């Protein structure tokens, strides 16, 4: 992990793209400007963070801006991790896709889109990945209720389709 000072230095290098630094439980997190995510990740890649371990979403309901996208970067030679995080409001939940630079983000961005409704601009194939294609809503949002989901058996599929119309 970069220590607290190292994190500040990184943030300085990123300039106005870095909004905030959080050093919590020996883990470094950079809050960044959603508009500049691709340049931020490429700058960090040039500094050695060459492996994108994970991309996942988080909902900060009821705080605004609500939706967060978290990128976990790893420098394999120094065994050093840094978390890059951005936050977007639900009514303008659009982030540039990093799939072109990091092919691993493909499935994971689709999952964030599926579960939280964050649209990744420039993603080659942005479809739902875990939920059915005709599903409505984004189930991992905090205001999406648990339960009440109809169980669809083949024998009453026609009834269920009628009820939906």
């Amino acid at each position, binding site marked *: 992990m970069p220590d607290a000072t190292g994190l500040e230095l990184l943030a300085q290098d990123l300039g106005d793209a870095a909004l905030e630094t959080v050093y*919590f*439980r020996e*883990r470094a*997190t950079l809050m960044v400007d959603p508009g500049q995510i691709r340049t931020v990740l490429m700058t960090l890649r040039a500094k050695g963070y*060459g*492996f*994108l*371990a*994970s991309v*996942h*979403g*988080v*909902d900060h309901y009821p705080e605004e801006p609500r939706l967060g996208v*978290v990128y*976990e970067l790893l420098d*394999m030679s120094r*065994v050093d*991790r840094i*978390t890059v995080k951005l936050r977007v409001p639900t009514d303008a939940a659009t982030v540039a896709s990093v799939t072109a630079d*990091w*092919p*691993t983000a*493909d*499935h*994971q961005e689709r*999952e964030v889109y599926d*579960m939280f409704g964050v649209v990744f601009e420039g993603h080659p194939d942005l479809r*739902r*990945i*875990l*939920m*059915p294609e005709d599903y409505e809503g984004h*189930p*991992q949002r*905090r205001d*999406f209720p*648990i339960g009440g989901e109809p169980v669809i058996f083949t024998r009453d599929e026609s009834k269920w389709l009628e009820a939906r119309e």
Partner: protein
Amino acid sequence: MSAVQSPALDGAQDTETTEELLTLNFGPHHPATHGVLRLLVTLQGEVVRDIKPIVGYVHTGIEKTAEDKAYWKVIPVIERMDYLSYYFNAMAYCGAVERLLEVEVPPRGQYLRVIHLELNRIASHLIWLGTSALDLGAVSIFLYCLRERELILDLFEMSSGARMHTRYFQVGGVIEDIPAGFERKLREFLEIMPKRADEYGAILNSNEIVLQRLRGTCPLDSETLLSLGVTGPLLRAAGNPWDLRKADPYSSYDHFQFKIPVGTVGDNYDRFAVRLAEIYESVKIIEQAIDGLPEGPYITEDRKVALPPRHELATSMEALIHHFKLVTEGFRVPPGEVYNPIESPRGELGCYVRSDGSSKPARVHMRDPSFVNLQALAHMSRGSYIADMIATTAMLDPILGGIDR
């Protein structure tokens, strides 16, 4: 199949009369997909041109369910994600919560965790080996692998009462100490396992059909694998010795001597050989852990996190209050978020937990290695025969419970 190498294969295609592409639906119910995985395969003759994986058939909303449960009640649901490596799921999650709480796991707890994690790694690799060999036409090895896995499940049953999804790992340590007789049985198993692994190697390495289907098929270099986020045995098969147990040790892994098996070219044979060699290394780790098992508590003595021992409940009012609070509400976790990665049998298993200060997690996310590794299947299989794609799917070792969560 592997007699025709990939470069020559394209040449072979020129002589084919067909230019027509065929889209084949493969799965979701097909024994060779190792679960409910659907692949849309684009074929030119017998040659794979593209693969689109379609997942989500066993999505059960575990991450959503976890947000509605107290921290310690999340462990049983999270164990059911990747159903072959349940101890690893629990370890990633408990490690994340422990980091948020700043709780130290006592040395005995850490060693007991290592013993169970490595036993689980062997069990997971045995299922992989058995089912993969089955796909390659070697039927009997499946029975042998399940026979040895049975011994491991017996050990799990001894220590926790359950054979699968044991809920043995708790936040702060493990739920119970190992019972009398566990050590003897474990040592018997450690005696048997390397010999049995020798037998698997002997059977498969002298099976010409298996070798033909594995050697030289669907290789992928370390660079491409890293850009696709692939970790674990698949990456090590391509010669990159990346293993979180060595690189970033957790739970006292730095106390043990073990090697990281690596491959050379990263073909299906290397993937097979690396996993088989890992079984021996896991046995070594367990041997050292049981030899050096420290005395002391097996779970943290922080009463705000771990249940008080049974005998205290009869005599101490304070213990009773703690017990009541923990069972009804659960413990509260300071607000914050952490990402805790560990090395599962399939690669980097990361657990992201965000706490809002209440007794239920605000977000639990598993970075499941199967989900990420699945993206590499198309890159591995492009330009090879469809039969090699079956072998590659087997060597990829996807667990659909982990992919769909």
